[in-house]
């Protein structure tokens, strides 16, 4: 393989890049020039308009127009040629296959945030102020450095199956065999296989929860802890009456971010089962319908539904942030 980078051959692209940079500078210069000309004191709105215009323009092109178009597409047939009313949505909630997808997403979003937060919280409390705290936290944080696809491939090997008579190459089956069991096809049996996929997500995300919650625990004022101790609180009471209420906002942040991340989960499922064996989730099915099967309408309907599911969580998070800011 030849890895030489030939600048001469790439000249048109580099030129384009340069043009882009120049154009960006020109736009900024123009904006500053305009701002300079506008009388600032009397009325603020011209300044506001000028400053917001580029961001609004980009948001419109990059977010609002596609969102509206996707919504329109979701009421159209697969090739986007005719209107079909609510057919795509009816399909989504009635076809057994599509319902399985919704059910799986529900399982994911119900389990992942809770388990991740619980594991992270437990871990953070247990290692807090212990001798190997930093080492322990680094270890649990390590999987965060692996991409979802990479983690999916690793865990595919963990779950790998070989027949009873030959050597196991999967860790889980080797353990099962070592205890005298028969090797299982972990990823083939619904609905358990979804749980095995969830384990992967928890493995990746637990580190994030641990680090955030551990920092929050360290932020609890020492006086409160000391007062509780003097009052004779047991460790369990300490945890539920002091620690947990004090880090409530951090727990919520973890729950909310995990919920959103789980709703749009795609990579793990696609890498490990490709959505086969009743493991598909909304994002995976949306990609399949829209891009592989050419059923743009159904894909768009799934996308819209995903958007509807994420919205309340986002709204809640924004409210929380506002309250925190106050």
């Amino acid at each position, binding site marked *: 393989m030849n890895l030489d980078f030939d600048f001469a051959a790439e000249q048109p692209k580099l030129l384009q890049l340069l043009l882009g940079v120049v154009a960006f500078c020109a736009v900024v210069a123009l904006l500053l020039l305009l701002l300079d000309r506008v009388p600032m004191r009397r009325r603020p709105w011209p300044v506001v308009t000028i400053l917001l215009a580029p961001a609004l323009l980009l948001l419109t092109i990059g977010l609002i127009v596609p969102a509206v178009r996707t919504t329109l597409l979701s009421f159209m047939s697969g090739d986007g040629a005719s209107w079909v009313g609510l057919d795509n949505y009816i399909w989504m909630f009635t076809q057994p296959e599509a319902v399985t997808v919704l059910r799986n997403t529900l399982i994911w979003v119900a389990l992942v945030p809770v388990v991740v937060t619980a594991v992270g919280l437990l871990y953070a409390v247990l290692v807090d102020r212990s001798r190997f705290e930093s080492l322990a936290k680094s270890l649990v944080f390590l999987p965060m450095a692996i991409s979802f696809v990479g983690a999916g491939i690793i865990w595919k090997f963990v779950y790998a199956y070989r*027949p009873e008579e030959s050597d196991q190459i999967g860790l889980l089956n080797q353990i099962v065999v070592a205890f005298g069991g028969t090797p299982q096809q972990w990823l083939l049996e619904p609905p358990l296989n979804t749980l095995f996929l969830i384990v992967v997500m928890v493995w990746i995300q637990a580190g994030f929860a641990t680090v955030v919650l551990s920092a929050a625990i360290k932020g609890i004022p020492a006086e409160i802890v000391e007062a509780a101790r003097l009052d004779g609180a047991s460790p369990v009471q300490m945890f539920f009456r002091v620690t947990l209420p004090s880090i409530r906002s951090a727990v919520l942040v973890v729950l909310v971010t995990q919920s*959103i991340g789980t709703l749009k989960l795609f990579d793990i499922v696609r890498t490990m089962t490709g959505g086969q064996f009743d493991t598909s989730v909304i994002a995976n099915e949306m990609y399949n319908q829209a*891009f*592989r099967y050419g059923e743009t309408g159904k894909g768009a309907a799934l996308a819209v539904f995903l958007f509807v599911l994420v919205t309340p969580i986002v709204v809640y998070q924004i409210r929380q942030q506002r309250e925190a800011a106050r």
Partner: protein
Amino acid sequence: MSLLSRPARLALVAGTAGLALVATGCGSSEPTPSADGGASASAECAPYEQYGKHDGKKVSVYSPIRDTEADLFQQTWAQFEKCTGMKINYEGTGEFEAQIQVRADGGNPPDLAFFPQPGLLERFAKAGKLKAAPDKVKQLAEQNWTPDWLKYSTVDGTFYGAPLGASVKSFVWYSPKMFAEKGWKVPQTWDELMTLSETIAGSGIKPWCAGIESGDATGWPATDWIEDILLRELGPEGYDDWVAHKIPFNDPKVLAAVDKVGAILKNDKFVNGGYGPVKSIASTAFQEGGVPITEGKCALHRQASFYANFWPEGTTVAEDGDVFAFYLPGNDPAKKPVLGAGEFVAAFADRPEVQAFQAYLATGDFANARMKLATYVSANKGVDINNAQNPIDKLSIQMLQDPNTVFRFDGSDLMPAAVGAGTFWKGMTDWINGKDTKAVLDFIESSWPKS
């Protein structure tokens, strides 16, 4: 949410990969200017004179063929590039079906694309994205391929592109050595095949092995099985009707054919040699499906001619070697319909250099040059059978070139993608995983796009 947000990480990976692609793409096939001229160079270039001079012009090709096979393609047309002065920018992808749509919709289509699915080609043709094949290509294609092949790239009377490579799917791989040792005979009819399976099962090994895991295309080898049997049970015309959805997917005749396959693939006595029970078919990679034959743990593996590339190193593919293949027999030994597949070269642009390259790809010269390098099968009649690299290629080409052969294209590649690349694959995977035939066929039938 991670510290480095996921889109950012993805962008980083994509950026690096893109850079690597760009870097390799531009370094590999730089046409050396033929400044040296001379008699030898002009003699080398004589066959390419008819394509004209296109100095400095570029043709982009987008294709699902990657890695070694892609390198071999580029090697094959290097001389063409050198003599015509054009540069072929070849890009292979593992996500062809999705990405070609994105590129075409995004206004950034390649000049040429190698479509492995006539059904997909038809979708693009109907959307008006493809250019009709130029007369030269049409003429070459009519001269080099049978009408059976040409109809697959003809949409509403317009011919869109010549076929390229081909593969024959109706093969059962076996070990001639094992057969000779045990005194087994290559079966000539379906009944003989089933008897042989019983005999082998009686000898202590499971006769069949299979694997249908193939990433998000998991299930396709099972659909090939079904198609092969349907082609034999319904006859070529009946098969065409089934592909065109004139016979519903859950028709009793289709059900009977699927159950006929099930008598092998869903029979714990017959499968899955070397891998375990029936369900292990769903999790075994198709590339590894037949490997137990070389270990003596399995005797039969139904897979296309290209499986010749997947045998472990050191396995000889020959009629008296470690592995070979026989024709999957039907009920009547006199009728031998062949199920196969291949790619079609369709154009999104009609610039002269694009058409010149398209014409070159349709010639026997190209197919022969490619075959001389390594294993390759084309249904091109201009192919010299002596260039075949191994006996299975030779057998395949003989079958394809035989004017009496009834050829039918892989049905799942002809159906709407929602079925052919979606529910049919998925349905067969569920079927292997335990779902009953009727439920699977009803599910596939209900997913057929209405319009």
